[in-house]
């Protein structure tokens, strides 16, 4: 991966110098420094973060796999702001999922730290972390004979001791998760008999039952029909609004990301390309540079920037 956009040693200065309108700016924003940049809009981050929401920050990250000689993702700073929905977007292979795996402690970065409210992820016990940070992987498999309710109860795993049975908290959390995900009518159905979209909602109910402050979702809408895509995103929004849960979600569809997320993190070749609210990030330049697509963007569209793709550009 070539270090084109980010030069790690100059990022600090670049950060304060770069103004927000340049789409090419290296958007290695460090902890809200540019938050008061004068951008206005409903999504602007408050100066002081809410006390009850949790922030997730990656610092000076280099993330790779044992099988790859060089890091797949390198970025100086990535912030998942407290109490907001952040979408990670980028073309295939840009490192979104890898970054998400590191943010959830599934993949230890080769360099750098991930901080949950200022504490390194490694300092948490595994269950302790799972009580605060939930992750839904891209592909999930469950035994077909498992019922939706049983699946959702597994979400209570980090809250239960080895010999503990279900208590009222667990029951309440499961009921709430099932109703929030809108799968009451499927409660006693077997997972093997559900459609893809229903299955995904059941899995989302499971991570909701985990009752975490931060929720990371890896492409939760891929392969779903439009109805279920919207259902999933609405559940995420509701969760964020009602419980102040910090959400980071990898999305394939940048249009969807622009509509639902408070912030976008656009990635290209394992680096952060740009960062900010959709109206700032989603530009014709971004679509050209990152997605290799020629498109018109209607930034003034009422539901967020509206993208009309025209054609794929030559490689």
């Amino acid at each position, binding site marked *: 991966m070539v270090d084109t956009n980010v030069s790690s040693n100059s990022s600090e200065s670049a950060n304060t110098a770069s103004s927000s309108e340049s789409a090419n700016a290296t958007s290695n924003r460090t902890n809200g420094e540019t938050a008061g940049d004068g951008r206005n809009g409903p999504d602007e981050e408050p100066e002081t973060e809410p006390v009850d929401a949790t922030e997730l920050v990656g610092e000076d990250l280099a993330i790779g796999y044992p099988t790859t000689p060089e890091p797949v993702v390198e970025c100086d700073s990535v912030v998942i702001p407290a109490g907001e929905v952040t979408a990670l977007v980028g073309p295939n292979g840009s490192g979104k999922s890898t970054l998400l795996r590191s943010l959830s402690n599934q993949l230890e970065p080769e360099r750098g730290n991930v901080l949950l409210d200022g504490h390194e992820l490694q300092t948490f016990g595994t269950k302790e972390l799972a009580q605060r940070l*939930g992750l839904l992987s891209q592909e999930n498999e469950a035994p077909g004979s498992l019922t939706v309710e049983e699946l959702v109860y597994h979400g209570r795993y980090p809250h239960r001791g080895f010999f503990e049975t279900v208590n009222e908290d667990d029951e309440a959390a499961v009921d709430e998760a099932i109703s929030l995900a809108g799968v009451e009518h499927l409660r006693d159905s077997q997972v093997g008999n559900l459609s893809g979209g229903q299955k995904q909602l059941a899995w989302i109910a499971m991570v909701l039952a985990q009752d975490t402050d931060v929720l990371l979702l890896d492409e939760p809408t891929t392969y779903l029909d439009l109805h279920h895509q919207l259902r999933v995103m609405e559940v995420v929004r509701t969760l964020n609004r009602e419980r102040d849960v910090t959400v980071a979600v990898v999305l394939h569809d940048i249009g969807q990301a622009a509509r639902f997320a408070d912030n976008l993190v656009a990635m290209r070749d394992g680096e952060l390309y740009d960062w900010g609210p959709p109206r700032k990030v989603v530009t014709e330049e971004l679509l050209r540079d990152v997605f290799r697509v020629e498109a018109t963007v209607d930034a003034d569209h009422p539901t967020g920037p509206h993208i009309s793709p025209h054609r794929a550009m030559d490689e």
Partner: protein
Amino acid sequence: MASDTQRGDYSGTSGQTRLGWINGSLVTLALASLGVVVVAGLVQVSFGAYSMSIGQAWQAVFDPAVLTNPYLLLQFFFGEGIAETVAGAFGLATAEPELTRETLIVWNIRLPRVVVGALVGVNLAISGAIFQAVTRNELASPYILGVSSGAGLTILLTLVIFSGLAAYLPILAALGGTLAFVIVYGIAWKNGTSPVRLVLAGVIVSTIFGSMQTAIFFFANDIGIVQSAIAWTTGSLTGTDWEQVRMALPWTVLSLILAVAGSRQLNVLLLGEKTAQALGMSVERVRFALSGVAILAASAAIAVAGIVGFVGLVVPHIVRNIVGSDYRRLVVGCAFAGPALMVGADVGARLALSPAQIPVGIVTGLVGGPYFLYLMRKKQQLGEI
């Protein structure tokens, strides 16, 4: 077990209360299995060198002189030492009762074989169920991770080369199985393990150990030793006694308790490694610990009966088809269905070619093979749980 003493709680949040997971199919399975064990056991005790009528044999099994004598029962199941201690503590009568000839033969010679068979069945079935969850592969068996090859190799080494240690054969066999498992785990380890790597490492170790076994056969100069080795490596209950019961019983109870206690961990493991980890499970630690329980159970079986194949593969399969994949039900179901298959197969092993006896492992193989053929034909996807 739980089936006859506790009723299922079907109301409210189904399946999540302490005993709510016990359902009709599990109870049916348990009762049917118990029936098979009892019938097969009664058939077993009715035949043998000393001829007695079936009625006599059954009377002997339920002989009140034995069943109402706790000291005698303790002696059978736990050995003289414990029996003395308990009898002393509770002031039980320790006088040897007058027993009929039939009762003596049935209780001393024929019944222990049935009990050992049942214990071996429990162990193998539970061990297989655990290994299938740990490797997330329905085709895994207690022997998939090199256990049988390790045990087989130590059995042959002991019989052929270190014949002085023959008295410790059961323990050595179990140790060999455990050692092979550790080697397999070591080979599979590379920043953690994965089900596929575990299975592949198991195949590698089994191949090498299998070759070494075959090589050792060439050094055996006595046909008796070869036959003994074959009996051990195919699994046999011939000649088992209360001593084998006492050897296997504590480990059976322990591994059964641990398996039931670990059933929720097994259920979470079935959701896949990533999900289990995201839910806060230390996947490697849990996987290793549960494998340890499975090895313990398999070792207890190997120590008394040698390497009986197919039981640990087939039983969890059958039980899963009946009660579903929930491990709380599966483990308990296996504890009933395992003995049913094992004791049933032993009837065949003992009586099919009477008076000659064949190792029970041959019968389980003859039953298990066609069952898998049937499954392969019937199911689209065989393998993933």
